[in-house]
């Protein structure tokens, strides 16, 4: 049985990197006595697959991983059992059963929604709503993306599905698939640059609001939260 687990990550937990979050949940499965399946072989490991790694420093309301379970009780019980062994800052939001044919969490990630706030004293000095409108009205948003080996020119525009300014924050909905995977800070850097500023270090407080999959087609995408693929049981 494939289960999808949604969790949030806040406070000091934002300093725990992706690999350590994976280790954390492996141990949590044991503490909560979840009947997780193991791979075969001499050193069996838990069958667990994470959706989209979250960068250190980011908080989230919508992180996901899938597990293979040998037996289950029900959604509410398993959620409670996991929450009983969580640390402050990590909360399990739901445990749902996936249909057999469902794609695994990592492969199904298509997009992510972020709220971007500003550190106190580091708020933008330009008018945010106008800047965002002008930014989104452009035909192309060219940036240089640093990769491990080289720099390459990239047009961000097709990867930004939605961007809007609130009084004290920015809502951003971007491609998070393995081919796109746009970091919100990259978009914000471009926005600042467009307005003649450099994005100061540590200015952004970013929260990933949710992670989405595409149930439509490439041409006509329908984005739904990863959670919605599973069902309560």
């Amino acid at each position, binding site marked *: 049985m494939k289960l999808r687990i949604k969790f949030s990550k*806040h*406070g*000091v*937990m934002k*300093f*725990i*990197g992706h690999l*350590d979050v994976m*280790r*954390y949940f*492996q*141990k*949590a*499965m*044991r*503490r909560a*006595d979840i009947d997780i399946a*193991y791979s075969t072989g*001499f*050193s*069996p490991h*838990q069958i667990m697959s994470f959706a989209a790694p979250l960068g*250190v*420093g980011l908080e989230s309301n919508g992180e996901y991983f899938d597990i293979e379970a040998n037996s289950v009780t029900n959604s509410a019980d398993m959620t409670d059992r996991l929450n009983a*062994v969580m*640390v*402050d*800052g990590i909360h399990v939001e739901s445990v749902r059963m996936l249909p057999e044919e469902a794609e695994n969490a990592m492969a199904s990630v298509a997009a992510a929604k972020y709220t971007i706030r500003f*550190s106190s004293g580091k708020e933008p000095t330009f008018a945010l709503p106008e800047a965002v409108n002008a930014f989104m009205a452009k035909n192309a948003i060219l940036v240089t993306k640093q990769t491990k080996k080289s720099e390459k020119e990239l047009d961000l525009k097709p990867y930004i599905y939605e961007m809007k300014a609130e009084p004290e924050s920015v809502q951003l909905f971007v491609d998070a698939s393995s081919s796109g995977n746009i970091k919100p800070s990259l978009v914000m850097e471009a926005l600042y640059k467009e307005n003649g500023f450099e994005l100061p*270090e*540590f200015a952004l407080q970013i929260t990933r609001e949710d992670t989405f999959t595409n149930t439509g087609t490439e041409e006509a995408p329908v984005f739904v939260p990863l959670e919605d693929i599973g069902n309560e049981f």
Partner: protein
Amino acid sequence: MIKPALSDEILLKIEKPARYIGNEVNSVVKDKSKVDIRFCMCFPDVYEIGMSHLGIQIIYDMLNRFEDTWCERVYSPWVDLDKIMREQNIPLFALESQEPVKDFDFLGITLQYEMCYTNILQILDLSKIPLLAKERGEDVPIVIGGGPCTYNPEPIADFFDIFYIGEGETQYRRLLDVYKENKKQGGSREDFLYQAAQIPGMYVPRFYETAYNEDGTIASFTPTREQIPTTIVKEMVTDVSNTNYPEKPVVPFIKVTQDRVVLEIQRGCIRGCRFCQAGQLYRPVRERDVEVLKRYAVEMLKNTGHEEISLSSLSSSDYSQLEELIAFLIDECKQKNINISLPSLRIDAFSLDVMSKVQDVRKSSLTFAPEAGSQRLRDVINKGLTEEVILKGAAMAFEGGWTRVKLYFMLGLPTETEEDIRGIAELSNKIAKTFYDTVPKEKRNGKVQIVTSTSFFIPKPFTPFQWATMSTKEEFIEKAHITKKAVLEQLNQKSIKYNWHEADVSVLEGVFARGDRKVAPVIMKAYEKGCLFDSWSEYFHNDLWLEAFEECQVSIDFYTTRERSLDEIFPWDFLDCGVTKDFLKREWLKAMDETVSPNCRTQCQGCGANRFGCGVCFEERG
């Protein structure tokens, strides 16, 4: 949620911020308005090392069971954060509350190895606690040391208010009660320390003074006030099955050195190797009841979620219920997919059988610690391991599929000759030959891989070798070269890889191990020059240390290579670790005579530890 002491900017800039944020599974947060005593427990090394230490977990758990006490943890900030804290004047803080260490009632520092001494000063300095105990006022914590290095606390005596000599489980309650009562009465720091010094096991350095002979040795060591004991007997748990054990140890977020459940099966060792300090300090051997251990294992695995469990003791093969315990663990862990790690097992039919069940033979290696290359020298050090036993064990293992062997030796042992050193290479070669003789060509999966490592012998207090002279750095390096050359001359040299330790740091460790109060200024000077994390080779600056010795006019040789007479008063003689100086002397003379002593179970050697009325001394024999 508790707000971190460090800003986001700092936490995102430094390596592994998880070292400093606390909040780990099973860490304890209490309401500070409801406790009387704030205790901060420190391991003076980086988080990943400190979090791997069982002793702190035991004390942390015990102190937090006291309703009136909140025990937190602190570790050495790594060099990146150290720099930032100094630049920005950020005081050192405890992990749980993220509040300054300076505001605590106690700062407990565990002393597990000598090379952490400058890190103690870093902890005090960053906490803004005066480095010298005598300069501390009423507004800073009582600094208390514990752990094996307190068995010669003198080189660091100036930095501590109290040393707790012996096992931590026994006297903390009493110490805290005295502290609370003194506070209630409006007593001073000095008042408290005076009362503390009268609690068994507590050594308060300020109430003692040392007089020296002209040659620099100790003439006398005496209390300066009434009621202060002249001898301090170590504290010890007599019933290890009925004492505190951390059933909910703290689980770190980041991978630490000991990332597993640790099950301490017994304390002490029956073997009596003459170089080994632990083998004397923790006498007599006390076993934990196997049923208690089974319960702990299940509870701890459940409470931590760790995927591995390891047995801990000085010599697990000597635990009398080992077969039963391992059978239980294998049964319990297999169904839960938990790994079992079995260190320090003697290689024999039983251990090979067990190891083949719990680990992948192709990936694991066999470990032998003959410590010396010849039978003669093994008799001197009382290491009851013969070449025959080693080769037989190796042959059995090779038949079982093992192809990797690790061998541990020491260079610079008392009476060592070039022949003994060459014996290291020859024994390595014989093991390789055993492989080629045992395993037919068609069954071989490549070559046998033998890794031979040598460390340098450092005489330690409370061992029969406390009278021994230590080699110089040049002698150590020469000995390592002889070993290297001898390895290269062996027929199977291509199957043997030889590693040796740094000599500089061994010499320093030798000074601290048998040092006296005159060494403290050198440690302070070296710290001022920037020495820190001396046990990390990339941060060890021998040149700075040599400058510090020079400037303080302290001789290294006085502590290392000097011949000590049998009646010399040692800096640690006022401590009583259970074994008598007479016994150690007898053992030293037997060593010079190349005579072995049987282990505690075979025949009592009258070491003196039976006065504690427990453990192996009172087992029924037969």
